């Protein structure tokens, strides 16, 4: 009896002790989780993962707002001076390294780079060491290279020297190990990626919004312009000028939802209201365009197509004044709301154009309480029915990243500034843009040389206002200090590196910050 108890006990303990170890073992599959080793095992895995390399493009919508507000085109507006503080500080040239908008842009662009790198890292062999081959794999990687170039271009424009890595997605142990690479090295990588992309990308997109060979050529042309490589730019952009694009006659129609991915569209970052998003902790990270809400008119009433917004990105009177009479782009770019209400009384029946809030009358809208200019961004004005769910975060408006008109103006500038200038071609491209704007050739430019250069630059402002190029154009062309009040030469050409990257990663700060 006693012996049997002993034997049973011993047996029992052996079972218990060996099962203890097993009991606390863990496999992510127990939680239905897919790990890196489960993935990139099929064409579909590669294609699905590649889609998410596009996602951070959408997160960069504040690039457009920052560029408007940092330039002479727009002010930050808002409820008061402490509303949208990050943008106010950029507007007022008080920007510091703790600016949340800038660090979000930095992080977003690097997430894009890491996603692109993960795919290039496992291009030949997946994490399990297998090679997955499929038709169209090269073209797929063309998109990846383009996207990596886009993200680095974004970083280099905003911040100057930035950490450069292309070999892999960084892991935890890579934290705090990188240094900033010189702008020239970053540009070299951008050129390489875009050249590789051009070699494999198709001329027409398989789906609207997919990157084409022309998009890559246009972006490379733009990059060359930023590098002052005008000869290369002229050659590269010529491919796009001779491509399948055309200028649409009605300028305003480009920015309607019906004008998305139209004949003038070389590359557009796609947004939609079909995946309602509500995460205020990552307001820019959904499928909707958050920047649209910022352009809206506060408390707009009536039956017009406009939906209410925040008035935190208001065009300046200076921009409105820059347009000549007869230029159809003015009304399509700058919305004078009081004039609009007066001109369209039927849309505001029962509401007074007078802007007193209060009980005495029913105001048609609430005047922007701070830095009011009376003007609103017509290109990205929020419209009724174009958002969903959490309405502020889900506007469907695509960001017209590269338009054919922009390509023409870049080509014009490249031809005008290349080592052996071709002003005839430059004027031709410039005047194509002007003729569409005015509907005639009476406003053609006939200047040459540096006068033509200035005319092209001025035209860029009129054509591309509120589209995210103005600040970078002013810096690139050396006009920033004269055009922007508060701009300090030698400092404000770039924004400060986010403070966390200084304190955590030990990166150096840009001069003056």
């Amino acid at each position, binding site marked *: 009896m006693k012996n049997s108890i002993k034997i049973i006990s011993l047996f029992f303990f052996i079972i218990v002790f060996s099962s203890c170890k097993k009991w606390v073992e863990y496999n992510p599959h127990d939680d239905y989780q897919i790990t890196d080793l489960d993935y990139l095992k099929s064409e579909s895995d590669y294609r699905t993962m590649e889609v998410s390399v596009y996602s951070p493009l959408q997160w960069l919508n504040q690039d457009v707002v920052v560029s408007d507000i940092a330039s002479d085109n727009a002010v930050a507006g808002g409820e008061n001076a402490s509303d949208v503080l990050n943008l106010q500080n950029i507007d007022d040239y008080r920007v510091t390294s703790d600016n949340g908008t800038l660090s979000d842009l930095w992080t977003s662009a690097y997430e894009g780079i890491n996603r692109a790198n993960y795919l290039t890292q496992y291009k030949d062999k997946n994490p399990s060491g297998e090679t997955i081959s499929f038709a169209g794999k090269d073209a797929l990687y063309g998109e990846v290279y383009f996207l990596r170039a886009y993200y680095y271009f974004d970083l280099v424009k905003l911040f100057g020297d930035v950490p450069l890595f292309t070999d892999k997605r960084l892991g935890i142990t890579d934290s705090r190990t990188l240094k900033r690479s010189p702008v020239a090295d970053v540009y070299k990588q951008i050129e390489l990626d875009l050249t590789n992309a051009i070699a494999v990308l198709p001329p027409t997109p398989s789906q609207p*919004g997919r990157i084409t060979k022309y998009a890559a050529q246009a972006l490379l042309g733009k990059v060359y312009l930023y590098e002052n490589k005008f000869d290369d730019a002229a050659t590269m952009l010529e491919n796009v000028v001779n491509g399948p694009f055309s200028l649409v006659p009605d300028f305003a129609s480009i920015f309607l939802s019906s004008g998305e991915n139209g004949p003038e569209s070389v590359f557009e970052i796609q947004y939609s209201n079909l995946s309602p998003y509500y995460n205020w902790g990552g307001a820019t990270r959904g499928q909707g365009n958050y920047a649209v809400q910022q352009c809206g008119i506060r408390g707009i009433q009536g039956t017009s197509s406009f939906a209410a917004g925040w008035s935190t990105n208001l065009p300046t009177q200076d921009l409105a004044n820059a347009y000549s009479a007869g230029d159809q782009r003015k009304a399509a770019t700058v919305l004078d709301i009081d004039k609009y209400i007066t001109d369209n009384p039927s849309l505001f029946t029962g509401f007074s154009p007078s802007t007193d809030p209060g009980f005495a009358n029913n105001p048609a809208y609430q005047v922007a309480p701070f830095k009011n200019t009376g003007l609103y961004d017509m290109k990205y004005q929020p419209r009724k029915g174009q958002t969903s769910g959490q309405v502020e975060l889900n506007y469907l408006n695509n960001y017209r990243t590269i338009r054919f008109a922009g390509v023409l103006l870049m080509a014009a500038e490249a031809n005008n500034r290349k080592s052996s200038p071709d002003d005839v071609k430059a004027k031709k491209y410039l005047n194509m843009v002007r003729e569409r704007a005015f509907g005639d050739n009476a406003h053609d430019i006939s200047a040459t040389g540096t006068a033509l250069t200035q005319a092209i630059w001025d035209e860029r402002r009129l054509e591309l206002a509120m589209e995210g190029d103005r600040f970078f154009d002013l810096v690139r062309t050396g006009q920033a200090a004269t055009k922007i009040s508060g701009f300090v030469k030698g400092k404000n050409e770039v924004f400060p590196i986010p403070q966390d990257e200084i304190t955590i990663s030990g990166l150096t700060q840009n001069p003056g910050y």
Partner: protein
Amino acid sequence: MKKNFKRIFLPLCILLFSTTSWAQSKTVTGKILNDRGEAVMDASVIAKGTKIGTTSDHNGEFSLSVPATVNKLVITAINYNDAEVATSGSPLNVVLKTLAKDLTEVVVVGYGTQQVIKVSGAISTVKAAEIKKLNPVRLEEALQGNASGVTVIDGGSPGSKPTVLIRGIPSFSGTDPIVVIDGIPQTLDDLNAINPADIQSINVLKDAATTAIYGVKGGNGVIVVTTYTGRKNQKTEINVSGNYGIQQVAKKIGVLNASEYGAIVNEGSVAAGGKVIFPDLSVLGAGTNWQDEIFDKAPIQNYNVSARGGSDKMTYFVSGGYLDQDGIVGGGSKSNFKRTNATANLNFDLSSKLKLILNTSYANLKSQGVQENSFNSIIGSALNFDPTVPVYNSDTSVVGKYGYSNLLLSEIFNPLTKLDNTYNVSNGDKLYGKIELQYKIIKDLTLTTRFGYTDWNQTGKSFTPLVFYGPLNVENTMNADGSTISGKHNSVSENKNTDASFTSETFANYNFKINRDHNFETVVGISFAKSRGDAINASRQDVPFNSWTFADLTAATGTNTTTNPSAYSAGNSQYFRKNASYFGRVNYDYKSKYLASFIARRDGSYAFGPANKFADFYSGSLGWVASNEDFFKSDFINYLKVRGSYGTVGNENVSPQYVSISTGGPSYGGTANSNGYTFGNTFVPGSTVASYKNDGLAWEKQKQFNVGFDATFFKNKFSLSADYFDKRVSGLLFTPSVSLYLGTAAIPTANIGSTKSSGVDMTFGYNDKITRELSINSSLTFTTSTNLVTATNSDGTAIINGGSYFNGQSQNATRFQKGFTPGYFYGYKTDGLFQTQADVNNYTAISPVTKLPVVLQPNAQPGDIRYANTNGDTLLNAADQTKIGDPFPKFTMGWNVGLNFKGFDLSVFTYASIGNDVYRAYERNANYSNKFDGVLNRWTGAGSTNDARDPRYTFADVNSNIRVSDRYIEDGSFVKIKNIVLGYSLPQSLIKQSKAFNNVRVYAQVKNAYTFTKYSGFDPEVPGGILNTGVDRGEYPQARTYSVGIDLKF
């Protein structure tokens, strides 16, 4: 002869003697009192040398018939020294002397019990009597101020979970102590399901000597709850109690009335270069104070019935309870908590060696809630909404019962409209308990195996109707005529949650003696535990008739289309956790004089990395009962024990980490690492790396040192226990700070930080009988802890920001950071107001480059706040933010006084929390939101005020006076009279006549009677874990409750 003698004489003798005893018996009566003059019931009275005996009744009285030859009675009672008294002089007055220290009293420790006298660790105990006095909704209420070393910060929302900290804040990743109910581990969240009336005692295990037996889960302390069981060979005792009360808000916040509001809005607009908003202030009058509209008187009622008793082979305790608490915000139809409890604790002696224990409890929890804790919650709206709006809508051209604002067009709505459109309900069933077998293998060796389980099934539903907020409101989903705005939908959401856990434990207890005086109590065992959960939720749009009546997935008609893909959607989540452990403990004492204890536990957790699956924990303690020494002769000190302990415990509040790939679209995780892209009008899901791995992940290691003493003195009238502790955590689980260029994949938790906490817990007791009829008992607890984060990572850059709120900007008010107290308030220090432009121009720092002064706040205007340039550089920016307050108290005290006079009992409990700051985060500060009466003292010109809390008022706040600063910090120290109870027990003489009852007591009670505090908000007690405690976003205040009740014992 011898034979004959036996045969004849013996029976004769027996006959003779017995006849004598019948003839000479006598009746002895008497009353037994203790040394405090209180009646001692259930004392055993035995005629010395016989088996004849009885027990004393409720009044301590007894009556016993004894043979005349008996001249002494032996009287014994638990907790008292034995007494022998002569039978002469009946009726007798017997006075029993209380034992120096209750020798028989035991505390429940992990996997066993221990005599209090032999405990060398630090334990706080709260007994049923204390709990009963409070009538708490959740039992944590009873710990507050009654258990030293425990800090409880209560909330006001019905049934809500308080913040509970045992001995400071050692960890970041969770500070909830574990709760062990009758041996079965549960969580603090589970305490909303237990009926406080079922609890016999709560022991709070505080130091490593007591918590190490729980190993990797013991790091935050252990709350051991013991419920009632039956008693052998006792007739059934039935207790019935009922309590009914009315709750009301104790205080309102000073906001502007309509005229004041109009004037300040005008001033703000004009100061910003705008127009006068209210040209005629005289028409505004007082307007509406929305607080008057949302707060209601709300009933609370609580009924309990229980029966306990037992036979020789079986004992039982069965009980039922019902609690119904309505909320004071919005009233019972919108905010309430209902709990129904049933418990059966059964013990069976299956044989002389085998015992079966079945504890089974069921609870049903039903609740409804209102939006809380934000500027646009119900309370937040009541504080911030436009006071010029009338309560009811008189505009017949629009639908809507309540008034609307033409100034506040989004975010903040009429709180009554909001309340009216709040629909939700949660209904949950919980079954928990244990099946336990105890087998006595040999004398003193018992093998116990138990299976504990908890099963929680909850369903919830909420309805978001279409609402019309006002003609100009931009967030309307309904038109002024009641029709639906195109593209808007109402929606109903339903969820089902299932959480289940079980613990399987087997352990052997062996108690033995060596050479009579060396006592050993040992235990070894193993434990397996698993918990798992599933949550499924779905929502659907287009509920018929926009009505709660039809708010159900089955009735809603929404179907997904390409333009509205979320008309009908579902989601789910699941989790599990597993642990395996071995443990052992040896308790030793020599003549109850020298005490020692040693604990070892080896814990394995599924969560830890492959390199660290198992962790070992050890602790040891020593004690010396000095008063048991022969040389210890003191008339003043009756009892003295000195004790000390040291050991390690852990914390495993972490999940496994691995490289995961997530697929889909937008992310709602902390880093918003979204996927997918829209091509044209087609959304295409994407995939990406979502997390990193950390194979080295391990437990948090906590080392705790404790030293203390227990003493009673002056005829046992006074008692004092005091402990000093020092806790150090290494390998603190914390999210490291990593380079931003890593992107947005989730950063894994790592063992990178360390913290230290130290403090003193003290309990002082006083019991005395002042006159024959008047006795007093009083206890005072004192709890203090100082906490410091000593590291987060090597360079201290890993910081967690918390306490988020919105006042026009998204703000963070708290931080967990190296070199500071956990969860401290972080912001700008104010330095008065700029009185003149010259003040602004003169507020400079010298540039180290140009050697010229640089104006620090160039945008400020006279009347704006001057912020301290704490780092001395030439920029006044985020780097100047610093510690501006601490949400956790420096010390807390609880003071209980009980008086008994004849049938009356009076009990008053006062709780004090000193040194805790509150951050006022309920002010929205929009141009047209209402303001608080502090604005009436605002700066209006040079010299008017220099108080940084009262800057000028303007719509254009160019100086950002609303930034996080000590402007919003208030001293939240308070003294609360938490409980006053006055009871009356009917005299036994009256009760005995009725024959129905054993005891009848009626009482009246006031909870949260009064709060002494300087804090201007509703209630300075603002719970919220580490990072949200003390951040008052319009916290649901604790109600003042007036109630009456009755306790009956059959």
